[in-house]
């Protein structure tokens, strides 16, 4: 026991303090100037951004910016209130209408962030007598939604239909009338792998469970009109709730849930992360609305996946151990040693490439990852620049030589 509220943070602070100082510290980086969706000035240096979730390059889209500027001028900088009180403008309703059109659903609710959408929907839908069944590799917002709610939480092995089936069968055996919500993600962000939604939704429906799919990393990217993996895999009619975010392909911030459930609108009256926070600023609402219209009709998806395949293939060709296959916008190499991974990040930033350093416990299977998320706005020249720097740093740190040395020995 201790009076010191901060003592519990000593282990993580010790780890943090052992990180390199200066520009090689991955947790102190900041953008001095953002030049475009794919370039910024960092440490006085023009840097290629290879880890931003800006899949469609929407942040500087001329039409989105114009819509945001108009809304800013007409409606001001913020709403200063909850959707329940003064924070619902006509434009918030229009954004929800746009989402309904985009997904072809009867209902849509907009949240102020994607995190809050998961938090609110999961914690509110599943009550004390219900069950939430989640994939082991779920995003933190899903785990936190479970922690905030009162339902019984059960976890199944990542993307494993048989393991899910066993758990649902047990719940049904012990509690035949319980409400069950199965929570899945279209694309798991760290390694870009898709959920086998056909199998997982079939099993869920066989056990009479509701299905929620978080399409945060797949909206815009997959499906004929960019609705995500459920559309791509042809199972939208098996999914009861789709959650998404405006902070990636849509290029701004905010979250949403769409559904055809007849009583869905009740959530506006009971969902605390929807009710007890200010609504999105008008400029954000305007650019999100415009971006959704653009995404539904864009041909940027093939450009994005082509970019990702080029980087994935190139990294694999020079001998990196890959965590990804190129079938999603993510390209990640696995670095066995954590300190080498941290050093790798520092060398890359000095060479003018910003990537994501992803470490356990945020990664599956305790992997250390140098993770890139591609954009349709990247040029092949930028991708070849990333490849050149990856290879240079890989050799500098002995990651690429190791293979040939051990082969010689």
């Amino acid at each position, binding site marked *: 026991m201790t009076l010191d509220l901060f003592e519990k943070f000593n282990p993580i602070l010790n780890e943090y303090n052992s990180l390199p100082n200066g520009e090689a510290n991955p947790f102190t980086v900041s953008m001095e100037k953002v030049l475009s969706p794919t370039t910024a000035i960092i440490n006085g240096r023009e840097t290629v951004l290879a880890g931003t979730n800006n899949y469609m390059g929407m942040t500087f889209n001329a039409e989105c910016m114009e819509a945001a500027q108009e809304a800013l001028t007409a409606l001001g900088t913020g709403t200063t209130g909850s959707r329940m009180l003064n924070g619902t403008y006509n434009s918030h309703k229009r954004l929800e209408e746009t989402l309904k059109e985009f997904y072809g659903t009867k209902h849509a609710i907009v949240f102020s962030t994607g995190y809050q959408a998961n938090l609110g929907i999961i914690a509110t839908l599943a009550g004390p007598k219900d069950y939430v069944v989640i994939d082991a590799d779920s995003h933190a917002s899903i785990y936190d939604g479970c922690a905030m709610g009162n339902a*019984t939480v*059960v976890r199944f*092995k990542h993307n494993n239909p048989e393991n899910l089936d066993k758990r649902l069968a047990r719940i049904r055996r012990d509690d035949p009338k319980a409400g069950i919500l199965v929570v899945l993600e279209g694309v798991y962000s760290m390694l870009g792998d898709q959920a086998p939604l056909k199998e997982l939704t079939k099993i869920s429906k066989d056990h009479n469970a509701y299905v929620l799919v978080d399409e945060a990393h797949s909206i815009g990217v997959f499906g004929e009109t960019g609705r995500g993996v459920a559309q791509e895999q042809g199972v939208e009619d098996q999914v009861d709730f789709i959650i998404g975010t405006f902070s990636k392909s849509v290029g701004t911030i905010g979250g949403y849930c769409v559904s055809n459930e007849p009583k869905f609108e009740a959530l506006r009256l009971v969902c605390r992360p929807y009710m007890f926070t200010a609504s999105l600023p008008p400029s954000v609402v305007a650019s999100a609305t415009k971006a959704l219209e653009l995404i539904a009709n864009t041909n940027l998806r093939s450009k994005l996946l082509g970019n990702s395949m080029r980087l994935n293939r190139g990294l694999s060709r020079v001998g990196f151990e890959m965590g990804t296959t190129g079938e999603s916008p993510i390209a990640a190499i696995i670095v066995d040693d954590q300190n080498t991974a941290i050093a790798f990040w520092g060398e890359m930033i000095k060479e003018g490439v910003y990537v994501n350093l992803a470490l356990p*416990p945020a990664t599956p299977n305790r992997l250390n990852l140098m993770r890139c998320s591609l954009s349709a706005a990247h040029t092949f020249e930028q991708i070849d620049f990333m490849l050149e720097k990856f290879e240079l740093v890989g050799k500098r740190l002995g990651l690429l030589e190791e293979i040939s040395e051990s082969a010689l020995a």
Partner: protein
Amino acid sequence: MTLTVDEIFDQICELIKPFNKKNVTISKDTIFSVDLELDSLTVMDLLSEIEDEFDITVPLNILPDLETVGQFTDAVQKLLANK
């Protein structure tokens, strides 16, 4: 067939083996995070093995209260009784 506490404990010890990298001697007082140096994700993986071994649902909700192997054993016994 009702399992005794000792039988449950023995079965759990078997399941812990692959996670027990340092070959620590397991007792009911063994603390997962300290003695076995398991992080919370690994404990959740172990929990998944236990669910399948005993054919029970172990809610993640009770995890914060389970620090030792003995507490895990007691929880499994309770869940088996309610099955």
